[in-house]
C-alpha cells in the first residue's frame, strides 16, 4: 500500500511545484527509492513466473496414474526363454502384438504361481473373471502416427532398448503420467521439461524419429528420412540453406509415418 501512497504524493508534488530546488532533490530521492521497489517486484515476478512455468505448470499438466497391476519385468525376463519377444511378439501377418493380452498371461498364470500379492490380485481380478487388464501404455503414439515395428525390428535390426529403454530391468511399474490436455503419455514428450535428452529412449517425438533416420540415411542405409528439419516449411519456390538440409534425398510423402 505504501507504494501507492508514495506515487500519489509524487504526482501531487509534480503538479504543485516544479521550480523549488529543495523539492526537486526530494523528488530525486523518491525516484531512486521507487527504482529499488520496481527491481524487487521485477525479480519476484521473474522468479515467480519461472517457477510457474518450469515447476508448477508441468506438475499440473500431467496427471499421475498407477498401473492396474504392479508388473515386475525382471522376474518375467528370467523365466522366459526368448527375451522380450516371448511376450511382445510379431504375429504372422507382420503386425506387432504390443502389450500382451490376457490369453498369453493365462498360459502360465492360470493359478497363482508365487507369493506376490500383485500376482494374487491379477489372478483374482482378471484371470478368474476373464477381464483384460487395462494397462496404461507408456509409448502409445497419437492416432495420426503410423509406426511399423516389423520394419524397424526385423528389417532395420533395431533392438527394443533403442526406443523403449531398459524397461526389461524394471522391478516395478512406474507411474504413468498423462498429459491432461492431449491425453498422451509423458514418454512421448519426454521427462525433461527443458526438452533435453541424453538417451535415445528419452523421448518419442517426430524429431527423435527423424534424428535417427537422418543419421542412418547419411550412412547410406535404406531408411525413410525427412528431407528437411521438420520446423522448416518446404516451399517449391525456395531452396533450403545448406545448414538446413539434413539429407539430400528425393522428398517423399508424409504418410510413410502419418495416417
Amino acid at each position: 500500500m505504501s507504494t501507492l501512497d508514495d506515487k500519489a504524493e509524487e504526482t501531487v508534488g509534480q503538479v504543485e511545484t516544479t521550480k523549488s530546488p529543495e523539492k526537486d532533490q526530494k523528488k530525486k530521492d523518491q525516484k531512486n527509492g521507487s527504482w529499488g521497489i520496481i527491481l524487487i517486484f521485477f525479480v519476484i515476478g521473474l522468479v515467480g513466473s519461472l517457477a510457474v512455468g518450469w515447476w508448477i505448470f508441468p506438475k499440473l499438466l500431467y496427471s499421475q496414474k498407477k498401473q492396474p497391476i504392479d508388473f515386475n519385468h525382471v522376474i518375467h525376463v528370467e523365466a522366459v526363454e526368448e527375451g522380450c519377444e516371448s511376450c511382445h511378439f510379431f504375429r504372422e501377418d507382420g503386425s506387432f502384438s504390443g502389450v500382451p493380452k490376457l490369453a498369453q498371461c493365462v498360459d502360465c498364470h492360470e493359478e497363482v504361481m508365487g507369493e506376490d500379492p500383485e500376482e494374487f490380485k491379477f489372478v483374482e481380478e482378471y484371470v478368474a473373471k476373464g477381464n483384460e487388464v487395462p494397462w496404461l501404455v507408456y509409448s502409445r503414439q497419437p492416432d495420426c502416427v503410423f509406426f511399423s515395428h516389423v520394419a524397424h525390428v526385423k528389417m532395420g535390426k533395431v533392438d527394443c532398448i533403442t526406443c523403449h529403454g531398459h524397461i526389461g530391468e524394471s522391478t516395478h511399474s512406474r507411474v504413468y503420467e498423462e498429459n491432461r490436455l492431449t491425453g498422451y503419455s509423458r514418454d512421448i514428450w519426454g521427462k525433461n521439461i527443458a526438452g533435453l535428452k541424453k538417451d535415445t529412449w528419452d523421448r518419442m517425438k517426430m524429431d527423435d524419429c527423424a534424428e535417427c533416420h537422418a543419421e542412418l540415411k547419411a550412412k547410406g542405409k535404406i531408411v525413410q528420412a525427412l528431407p528437411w528439419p521438420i520446423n522448416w516449411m518446404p516451399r517449391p519456390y525456395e531452396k533450403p540453406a545448406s545448414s538446413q538440409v539434413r539429407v539430400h534425398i528425393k522428398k517423399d510423402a508424409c504418410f510413410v509415418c502419418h495416417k
Partner: protein
Amino acid sequence: MKEQHKHTKAKKYGMVIDLDKCTGCGACMAACMAENNVSFKKDESDKLLSITWMRVYKLTNGKKFPEADICYLPRPCMHCEGDHGHAPCVSVCPATATDYSHETGIVSQIYTRCFGCRYCMAACPYHARYFNWWDPVWPDGMEKYLSPNVSPRMRGVVEKCSFCFHRYQLAMDKAYIEGRRELEEDEYQTSCTQACPADAIIFGDLNNPGHAVTQIAKPDHKHGGRPMNPNAFRLLERLGTNPKVYYLSSRRWVRRAGDNYIKDERG
C-alpha cells in the same frame, strides 16, 4: 554391396474401371466409407455436404427413348502424377499437407498437417476432395466398428481417397516379416476393388507389366501415361493432370463424356 543399397523399384499404383461392367450399385462407395472411417450425416442425400471418397456419378447421353443410354462412373481420387509429381492439389497446398509419393505414386493427405484453406479443393478438377464442416459423429456403439488403421478426421480439414494406403502399409508389414520388400499383386488391393460385385474395378502397379492394370490400360509412360488401349480414357485427359485412374468403355459417347470437346471436334 551395391545391390544392398539399391532401393526397391518405384511403384505407380493405379486403377482401371470398366464402365461397361459397372452397374451403379454403389457397393464401392459403401465399402470405402466403412473402410476409411468416413462418418455420415443425418441427410446423406445432400451431396454438397456429404463426404464420399468414392462417388458414383450417373451419365446420360441426353437422347430420346430408342437411343437413350446411361452409364455409371465411379470416381475415386485420380492420384494425378501431373508433371513429375506436380499434381494440381499438391502444387497449391501451402502446408505441404498433401504430397505426391514417388515411391508408390499415391497422393497423400495428412490431416494433422492440413489447416483447412481448401485451396486443394479449388485446384482439384475432379471434385475428389472433401472438407469436414463438422466433427465426425457416429451413432452410439458404432465407434467400435471403426478401423484402427485409419485416423478419423477432425472438423476443419480436407480429406480424400488414399487408395487405401493403410492396406499397403499392412501388406508391407506382412512382406517384411516374411523377409520380402516387394508385394504381390493381390496383397495390396483397395476396398472398393474387392467390394465391386461386377469386377468392374481392378487395381495394381502401372509400372509392373505383369499387373492387370498395365495390361489392360497399356499406359504410355513416355507420353504422360496416356492409355494405348483404344477403349481406355482418363477424365479430363487434356488438362495434363496425368491421373492414374483409367476408365474403359466400348461406347464412344461415354469416352467423349470424359473430357470437354468443341462441338464438331473429332475424337
